[in-house]
């Protein structure tokens, strides 16, 4: 029984991190941290990071990675604001379609061009950034439609609207990944592309779809941010990619592919959000915060790699019949 509980706790390490961060800041900065306004702010803040981290979770599951999400975010924010005079929701539609299009491009280049996902998405990252800078002429674009700010800046009761939107999206993604054939195929492809292919799964098509989902989610984050700020700047999404990678891996996804949980990723983003909020409350200077974020990314990636190696070795041991 105790052993079972112990194992359960080990598996849920992200939840433990979340709770311990919550308790630590609650004890040391209780008055500032644990009040309604601050929690409301955290919830709003993380709601723009959740879609990005979910985008990465989806591509990590199929054994890929998407570095272009930061650029897609800023471009779709620019489109949302830029096309708004023609029609607010028409602009949102175009922005989301743009994200899906870039995801499609990534997927095609990776599956047909035979390029590793890192390199492809590094290329599209630069490409989309160039398109964004050309489109905006390196200027900020202000929104014309005040009512549109409801989606990013408004609240339903005490709950911020964007967190409701992203949690609904997360729920849909959860159902798709867990209970549909498509979702299960993604896990199979990430776990072992060759055996997935032999089992009759269309590996290339499913991969392209995964990247399209990633593009869509990145664009969604851009639309929500544009709504929150009622403007778009060229600086949006600059360092969010690193952040999203850290959150997704903390939440249970792996660079080795085949693993990843929607719920874990959401908790991962929330933990990082609390950490940032806590650092701000304590008064950690921005320059040091950049360093701390970088350290978190390095540690998360390193731990993930060590774990993946250990799992692989265990599998090999089992295959040779030498279980320890």
């Amino acid at each position: 029984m105790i052993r079972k509980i112990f194992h359960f706790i080990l598996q849920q390490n992200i939840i433990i991190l979340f709770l311990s961060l919550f308790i630590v800041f609650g004890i040391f900065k209780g008055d500032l941290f644990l009040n309604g306004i601050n929690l409301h702010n955290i919830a709003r803040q993380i709601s723009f990071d959740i879609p990005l981290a979910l985008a990465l979770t989806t591509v990590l599951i199929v054994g890929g990675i998407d570095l272009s999400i930061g650029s897609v975010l800023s471009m779709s924010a620019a489109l949302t604001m830029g096309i708004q005079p023609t029609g607010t929701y028409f602009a949102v539609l175009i922005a989301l379609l743009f994200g899906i299009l870039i995801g499609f491009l990534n997927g095609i280049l990776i599956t047909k061009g035979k390029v590793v996902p890192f390199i492809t998405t590094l290329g599209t990252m630069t490409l989309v950034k160039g398109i964004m800078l050309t489109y905006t002429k390196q200027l900020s674009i202000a929104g014309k439609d005040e009512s549109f700010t409801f989606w990013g800046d408004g609240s339903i009761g005490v709950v911020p609207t964007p967190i409701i939107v992203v949690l609904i999206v997360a729920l849909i993604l959860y159902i798709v990944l867990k209970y549909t054939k498509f979702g299960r195929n993604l896990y199979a492809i990430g776990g072992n592309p060759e055996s997935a292919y032999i089992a009759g799964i269309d590996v290339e098509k499913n991969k392209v779809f995964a990247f399209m989902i990633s593009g869509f989610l990145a664009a969604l984050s851009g639309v929500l941010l544009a709504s929150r700020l009622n403007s778009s700047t060229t600086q949006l999404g600059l360092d969010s990619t690193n952040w999203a990678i850290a959150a997704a891996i903390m939440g249970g996804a792996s660079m080795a592919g085949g693993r990843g949980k929607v719920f874990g990723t959401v908790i991962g983003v929330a933990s990082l959000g609390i950490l940032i909020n806590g650092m701000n409350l304590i008064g950690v200077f921005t320059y040091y915060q950049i360093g701390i974020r970088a350290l978190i990314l390095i540690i998360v990636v390193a731990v993930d790699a060590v774990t993946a190696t250990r799992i692989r070795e265990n599998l090999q041991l089992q295959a040779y019949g030498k279980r320890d």
Partner: protein
Amino acid sequence: MLQTVGKFIINYPSIIILVFLISLGAFISPVFFTSRNFVNILWSVSVLGIIAVGQTVLLITGNFDMSVAYIVGLSGITTVMLQINGANLITSVAGGLAAGVIIGFLNGLIIIRTNANAFLVTLGTSALVYSINLILTQSKTWYAQIDAFLILGRGKFYGTIHYSVIIFLTMAIFVQIILRRTIFGRSLYIIGHNPKAAKYSGIQVNRLKFGVYLFCGFCAGLAGLVMTARTGSTVANAGVGLEFDSLIVSVLGGTSLFGGKGGTIRTIIGILILGVISNLLILLNIQYEAQQIAKGVVFLTVVCADGILEKKRRSS
């Protein structure tokens, strides 16, 4: 004879592209085909070239370093800070180079110890170095104090060609000889081709990988010194974008992203292609933003070609 020419074209498509671009440039712009313009092109790419030498060697072993951009900033900042605090020329230059090597050490250590994805680890150290740069400079511009130091970036050899260009070309040729003619260099190709086979044939894979990361850090540090000496000042994000450019030029030259293939002489050609393209875009008055798009398109085309060719090679 024709066959040899055909073979040459297939093996070195980058030379054809370069010749085409130069003739195009001579056709479009009257200023392009002047010796002064060529000296300028070489001078403008020399910083990138020094970085690309390190990056190419890493690519040959199948590794990446995305932190080179901010190492450029860090080494410049270290040198300038040392000079401001009264260090002499030799000490400050050594300090700058040491800063680059230390980051290379960090990258190599994490990657060989944990076997983690080189790309992500160096992305992380890149942000880490950026934060160090910001803390050191406080987002201000700092100026070099010793005039003799500036010769490294601005000085010309008998008034004809810049010292930085000579450093870059010498390094590229020297490294190429090491790659091709020594056991150490040849081992790097084997590691890139098949790390497992390299390990089983008695090559110290991790030790060599570590050494190459140190070398790449050193190159980036040296490039940072050249850049600082050229402008006479330094800022926290001095080298931003160079990590991407160094990948582009290596692949343009014919170094494969899959490892095991390439060389630094090829990278010189890749550098020249990029230099001529940016020079032409400037001469044609095309905006910076459009240049970004052009770079992205060129990069994607080249890596796709590389990927498809590699696939064919492996299957045949």
